[in-house]
């Protein structure tokens, strides 16, 4: 996790985490050129897997230019041209986190370019939905763009950062939904569990944000604790927090963790 110290890898390993999947995301500032992305892709496909391995954690990554830097279409084109060189790296699961930030025309154009790249290379897709007031509109625009490309199988796409107003939109159209646990926005453990009760737990996964802001790398294990307090049994917790994400990511043949056979009995 490029924005995190080794303390966080230790905390995750101690809490029982087995693997990390790290999307390509914003660096906290806009990169000056595609060269910054080239080094970033080297970092998340080579250096970070080795750093995580020191703590017994498997490390997977996703590649893209994130929506915050997608207003500059020519920069995006240059970054997308770099991705095929990295796409066959053993820890790369697919294209992500693509999506929208402010719901602009150029962001949409760059989203379509990424979807085309993923389709041509038969990649899984991880989608970021916008923040706060922009999320509802952005989620609808993203779902329409994905649905308009007949090459895209919704079961191979996860739409991340859903909340109560967007989760049913995503699940009703056959996509996976990611609930991101974040102290100041997105969702909390209790609301995530509420959404499972409202919308079911199929094609849903929970994730911890581990970025430059205030975030908690062990928010997923903490949610397991809250599920226990709310009466869920160990099998339900395991299915949601472990089997579900493993099931989605196993659609990429490169994904392998020791405790997962590739079959989900839910």
């Amino acid at each position, binding site marked *: 996790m490029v924005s995190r110290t080794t303390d966080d890898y230790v905390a995750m390993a101690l809490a029982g985490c087995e693997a990390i999947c790290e999307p390509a995301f914003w660096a906290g500032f806009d990169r000056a050129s595609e060269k910054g992305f080239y080094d970033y892709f080297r970092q998340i496909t080579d250096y970070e897997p080795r750093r995580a391995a020191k703590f017994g954690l498997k490390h997977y990554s996703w590649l893209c230019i994130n929506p915050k830097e997608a207003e500059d279409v020519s920069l995006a084109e240059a970054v997308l041209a770099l991705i095929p060189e990295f796409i066959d790296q053993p820890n790369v699961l697919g294209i992500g986190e693509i999506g929208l930030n402010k719901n602009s025309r150029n962001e949409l154009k760059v989203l379509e370019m990424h979807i085309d790249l993923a389709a041509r290379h038969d990649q899984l897709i991880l989608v970021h939905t916008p923040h*706060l007031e922009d999320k509802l509109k952005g989620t609808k625009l993203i779902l329409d763009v994905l649905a308009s490309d007949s090459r895209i199988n919704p079961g191979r796409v996860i739409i991340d950062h859903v909340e109560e107003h967007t989760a049913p939109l995503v699940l009703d159209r056959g996509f996976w939904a990611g609930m991101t646990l974040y102290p100041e926005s997105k969702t909390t453990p209790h609301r995530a569990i509420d959404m499972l009760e409202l919308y079911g737990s199929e094609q849903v996964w929970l994730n911890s944000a581990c970025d430059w802001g205030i975030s908690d790398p062990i928010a997923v294990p903490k949610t397991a604790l809250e599920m226990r307090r*709310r009466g869920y049994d160990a099998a339900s917790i395991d299915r949601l927090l472990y089997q579900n994400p493993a099931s989605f990511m196993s659609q990429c043949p490169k994904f392998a963790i020791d405790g997962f056979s590739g079959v989900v009995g839910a």
Partner: protein
Amino acid sequence: MSEEKTPPAAPNLVDLGFMDARIKAIDIAAFFDRVQRHGQSDDYRVAALRAALPELLSGETGRARRVLEALSDQSEEPIPAAVIQGAFGAPRPTES
């Protein structure tokens, strides 16, 4: 959708959540007092929050979804260009 929609042995959820909800309710009240005391009640975000709050008193479930919708940009067309990167928690008056 699946059998765990209702936990097998639901604990007392009021025991689990009441103190947290109480703290948040008082915090919201104090926030409105604070911005009013300092003459900032007409900020569009304060107005949007005030407009969303009646949903809390609704008798219908789906309150969280409706509060989120009330604080969302309801326009449908992409904007011409992203001139900022951040979000503010409520649609700016020009946005919808």
